């Protein structure tokens, strides 16, 4: 065949181009589809519940993935900031994947369980009241819309989550009962952001918050027994900065930036307990306070040791002691 004839035969050229582009496609995209190692499945990572599925669809509808990633890379600072790096098994139930490509806002792969629901209700309604420098858009309308569950059973079936229509109905009813009950721990903030007519219903915001609380939850649960108790090491029992005024001032800066959004102005209390007091749920010794800030506590207190380091945790504790003194 005369090589030049390729440039005189358009159909042949189109076939040749198709053949050339299919080599890279086959190797990097098509063949991996059939390799079990590409998308491993682990029984530790559970499919989404009915309500989490709906919340995920709200996340997709609002395009949250345009500003938030959901993949923590295996880099030291990234693990310190967000938590353990993302594993392929964690995405097994994700259709579509939502890893994102830009962090205008922080990564959310480890957002689940980090804060109480109340934090999210307040934050979604008006982020700037909690962080004045944030550029997160407010989404007050999500609480004004009743969640449409007419397609939920169909969605769960298509996604192959392995439970039936009756189970979907049961889950939705149970969820509604949880979030509308007076005993719901975040009931007060939820009622502030939800219009009166929808207080007894499931709103789109309820579903979104449920989804956010699922992110990274299964991995954290799976790792807990292996990791043992929080690594508040025994040597950390005495605050080296106790009563040190300049350390207290540094602690105040950290408090304003990180702690204030939950514990309130000067530790007056908010989603998190009041700190300007001596009555402490998890104990009042230096060691207890260090353990709370460094390792976190169940019910929505995140661990700050990886982010702050020992020195700054102690300075924060020094400021908490200062608040305690000022109060008395």
């Amino acid at each position: 065949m005369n090589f030049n004839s390729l440039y005189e035969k358009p159909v042949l050229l189109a076939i040749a181009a198709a053949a050339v582009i299919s080599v890279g496609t086959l190797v990097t995209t098509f063949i991996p589809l059939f390799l079990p190692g590409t998308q491993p499945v682990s029984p530790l990572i559970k499919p989404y519940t009915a309500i989490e599925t709906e919340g995920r669809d709200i996340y997709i509808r609002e395009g949250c993935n345009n500003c938030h990633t959901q993949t923590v890379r295996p880099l030291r600072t990234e693990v310190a900031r967000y938590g353990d790096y993302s594993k392929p098994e964690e995405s097994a139930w994700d259709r579509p994947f939502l890893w994102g490509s830009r962090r205008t806002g922080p990564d959310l792969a480890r957002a689940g369980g980090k804060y109480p629901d109340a934090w999210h209700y307040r934050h979604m309604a008006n982020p700037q009241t909690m962080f004045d420098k944030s550029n997160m858009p407010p989404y007050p309308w999500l609480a004004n819309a009743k969640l449409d569950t007419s397609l939920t059973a169909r969605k769960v079936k298509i996604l192959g989550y392995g439970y039936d229509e009756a189970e979907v109905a049961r889950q939705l009813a149970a969820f509604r009962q949880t979030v509308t009950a007076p005993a719901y721990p975040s009931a007060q903030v939820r009622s502030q952001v939800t219009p009166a007519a929808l207080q007894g219903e499931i709103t789109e915001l309820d579903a979104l918050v449920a989804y956010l609380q699922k992110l990274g939850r299964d991995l954290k649960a799976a790792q807990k027994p292996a990791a043992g108790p929080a690594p508040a090491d025994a040597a950390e029992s005495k605050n080296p900065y106790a009563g040190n005024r300049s350390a207290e001032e540094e602690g105040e800066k950290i408090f304003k930036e990180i702690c204030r959004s939950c514990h309130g102005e000067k530790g007056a209390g908010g989603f998190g307990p009041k700190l300007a007091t001596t009555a402490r749920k998890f104990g009042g010794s230096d060691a207890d306070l260090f353990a709370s800030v460094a390792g976190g506590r169940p019910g929505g207190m995140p661990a700050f040791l990886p982010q702050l380091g020992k020195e700054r945790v102690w300075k924060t504790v020094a400021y908490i002691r200062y608040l305690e003194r000022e109060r008395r």
Partner: protein
Amino acid sequence: MTNGSRGDSIVRGFALSSVFWLLVGLVVGMWLAAEMIYPALNLTPWLAFGRLRVVHTNGLVFGFAIGGIFACSYYMLEKLTRTPLVFPGLAKAQLWLFNIAIALAALSLFAGMNTSKEYAELEWPLDVVVVVLWVMFAANVMGTLVKRREKQMYVSLWFLVACVVTVAVVYILNNLAIPVSLTKSYSAYAGVNDANVQWWFGHNAVASVFTFPILAMFYYFLPKSTGLPIYSHRLSIIAFWSLVFGYLWTGAHHLMLTPVPEWIQTVALAFSLFLIAPSWASVINGYYTMNGNWDKMKSNYLTKFFILGVTFYGLQTVQGPTQAIRALSGYLHYTEYIPGHVHMGTMGWVTMIITASMYFMMARISGRGIHSVKLANLHFWLILVGQLLFTVTLWIAGIVQGAMWKATNPDGSLTYTFLDSVAAMYPFWTVRLVGGLLYFAGIAVFAYNLHMTSRPNAQGV
């Protein structure tokens, strides 16, 4: 050439539609740039950042770029084959369907109907329309090529064929989904595979929309505007095949350090570096074409668009592969550096070439030449300065942001909170908005100048 032929009116229709969507897409872009600084501008669900960003990207990729590609392709096709379009009626229908589809696309994305997969956000009924549009386009391209009177096919036509084939393959495979309802579907792939297929698409959508057809325009309109033949036919053959072969391996460089298998990332990195060679072959071909005639940069108003455009292509195709290197990806990915990179390609390379090609075509079609060379020069300088201010600012912003994310104290703890890194961005975002406004002013001048150039003369011909 005949004034007012059917082909010409189709070219004109696509060109003006494309410019309309360009203006719409840029207004949305400026609103987004302002939202980054003033979150209170997220007034309603329809104007919230997450939905609007998708309208911006889709409007400009599908409305402006694809519309411009349709216009320039049909023009080049008729000229290079010395044959009128085989199915002019089909092309006319395609023009109508194109504008209806883009309008529906914008409305559906405003309403939150989207799949979340970047540049493939349209829900399945609109995917079907896109495929129908593409088949209409392919029928005219291949049909006219088969019927052509010119024996040899010029390099622009190969790039056109590669565009037709590649867009079809990547668009269809990435959009495979199972419908839940008319406005909702779930991807056919799960998790890691969905990510891998998506970025194989995402990267090759860039190849087949922002590279192949734009190179086709460059190889055609640069020689036509300057009257200088392309420097090397052989170099263009080598560049064509190595580019078409290499591009499809590189999608996973968008997924460095994610759960995608490491070997796929490494292969993508290797081919990304390889791609510098064929990309620069086209750049060098362009520069050598000007050899001994660089005075045309001053004497011919279009030349500078093509030469600056291909220069940004050259910079883009070096910057891209370096971002694929793992250490640099770890530092720069997810920061403002990436939008900075993308916008050099789109605002520098793609828009410079398409707008200059449109001036050339409309001046020829109207038979009266360009309305105002002065305005064309003003347009050039405004979009050049606007783009540089925009992109260079975002590169610096990205480097600052990456540094803040990685900064640690001696005890290994993090120096900055995430919010510190957001607060540090506000001055950069403000300069970016100013760059965007300058750029938009340039495009407004272009739209006016093109409209005045293309408007029918007194006899209505």
